[in-house]
């Protein structure tokens, strides 16, 4: 039944995919070009020892992959979820069918996962084209990026479906997404942060996604427990989101 809801989103997407392609393609190109090549040429002149001896492009590219997944996850789970209740009422229509609220949620989440996979694949392709990839392990950064995105998408969808007005999103984006994007070891290593701030970064999901993607792209080992720890953190967050989402959708749709 989840599948039926997912196919609905596919049908919708067939109509609107053109506009989304631009953001999927241009996003990574802009970031890799501006941050990796532009800013990178400055950084590289001053030595890259603190980056682990790799070029800034190679350092920042996997972080762009992970934070891009966060962005996609957030944007696919915020407005579209809210709008499916308030604007185009896709959920309200679907509700009258045999689909249960949980099916409607999971079907939409499956669509979000598909969008995450598409965007991550495009980003990895550009990373490779820009010469930012150092290891074939990067193929595993693909599922990791999807998982990172879901760790955001699932809890946010659970929150968005209960929201009464859209102002809350502004806070999420401004006070949640922005700092995460800046302070999760994305554009500079965490070692540059003051010591007291580092535990905060460790607690944020994006940092785990960045560390994993970076290790896979650079071909560095995090050790078995390190790798499993990071994956588990993201998986637990996504699972909590999926559990909470089912409950939230039921609460909101079955009043």
């Amino acid at each position, binding site marked *: 039944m989840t599948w*039926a809801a997912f196919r*609905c989103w596919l*049908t919708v997407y067939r*109509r609107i995919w053109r506009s989304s392609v631009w953001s999927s393609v241009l996003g990574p190109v802009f970031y890799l070009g501006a941050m990796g090549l532009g800013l990178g040429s400055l950084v590289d002149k001053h030595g890259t020892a603190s980056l682990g001896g790799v070029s800034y492009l190679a350092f920042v590219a996997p972080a762009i992959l992970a934070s891009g997944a966060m962005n996609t996850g957030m944007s696919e789970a915020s407005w579209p979820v809210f709008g499916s209740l308030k604007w*185009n009422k896709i959920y309200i*229509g*679907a509700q*009258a069918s045999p689909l249960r609220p949980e099916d409607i949620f999971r079907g939409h989440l499956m669509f979000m996962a598909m969008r995450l996979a598409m965007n991550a694949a495009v980003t990895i392709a550009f990373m490779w084209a820009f010469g930012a990839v150092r290891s074939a392990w990067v193929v595993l950064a693909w599922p990791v990026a999807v998982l990172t995105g879901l760790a955001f998408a699932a809890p946010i969808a659970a929150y968005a479906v209960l929201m009464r007005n859209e102002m809350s999103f502004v806070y999420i984006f401004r006070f949640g997404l922005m700092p995460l994007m800046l302070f999760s070891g994305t554009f500079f290593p965490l070692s540059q942060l003051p010591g007291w701030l580092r535990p905060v970064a460790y607690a944020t999901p994006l940092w785990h996604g960045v560390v994993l993607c970076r290790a896979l792209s650079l071909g560095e080992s995090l050790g078995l427990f390190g790798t499993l720890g990071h994956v588990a953190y993201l998986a637990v967050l996504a699972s909590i989101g999926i559990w909470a989402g089912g409950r939230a959708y039921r609460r909101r749709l*079955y*009043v």
Partner: protein
Amino acid sequence: MAGKSVRRMSHPPGSLHQVPGSSASEVLVRAHGLTKRFGNFTAVDGIDFDLYRGEAFGFLGPNGAGKSSTMRMIGCVSPPTSGELTILGLDPVRDGSAIRARLGVVPQEDTLDVELTVRENLLVYGRYFGLSRRVIRERTEALLDFVQLTDRAKDKVDPLSGGLKRRLTIARSLINEPEILLLDEPTTGLDPQARHVVWDRLFRLKQRGVTLILTTHYMDEAEQLCDRLAVMDHGTFAAAGSPRELIREYCSPEVLELRFDPELHDTAADKLEDFPAERMEVLADRILLYVTDGDEALALVRAIGLDPLTSLVRRGTLEDVFLRLTGRRLED
């Protein structure tokens, strides 16, 4: 618009647990003490009814009377707070999916996907019901033909008029060949032509044996479509029965409407206090006399020395029943 009303008749609300003459058959929906509360607010307050296969049943009432809450409970998207509810012999909380597979729903507000075409809307919706593409394609042709939208099949939904969207919503609700069709204010907001087309299609569905359950606050709609009605007010049934029964019980055969010079309005009302009518209602601008014979009553009015500016004799209608039972107050 508050007018003082003089009530001389009082009837107990009719019972809905009686088999209507024509369709003495299978009970599709049974409610007993059905109640829905939202916090402290009681939207539906312990109603009882049986709905039978093949009939058209209407919930009538002012806004906030509990019609839509009742419909949502029957549609298995709103768990009852208390009381019993059985739909197609199943429990809506436990077997919601199985029941919804056999229901069609036309919601109050259109929930069509305006970014898709007419045909795609039916495709997506059919998919929700787990129908195969082939089945959906076959049914789509028949349904679009039924609601006369065949030539718009490839058009986007967004620019369609309200009437066309409503017809598409009805077509969509039929994609799973439902046994019961739930319609929440099916023609609210439509122009008269569009309303008549919708009524015609709904009537045909009823002829085919589809059970119709609808809410409305249009009396003509109720009269046109419904075999039986329940007038709801404050979450309970104020009365129930066939349109004819309701008119017989809560109204008079004829109504005499009198309009006086505003200066003489109150005096006239006082003079008519003892007039031999079944009931009199004094509105801000008119006085209504509920009588058996309107012309005879008018002659009598003249005989006691009153000279109305205008007078109108008409038949008692469902609207009179409705206003009598739910009052002439203005609500939200």
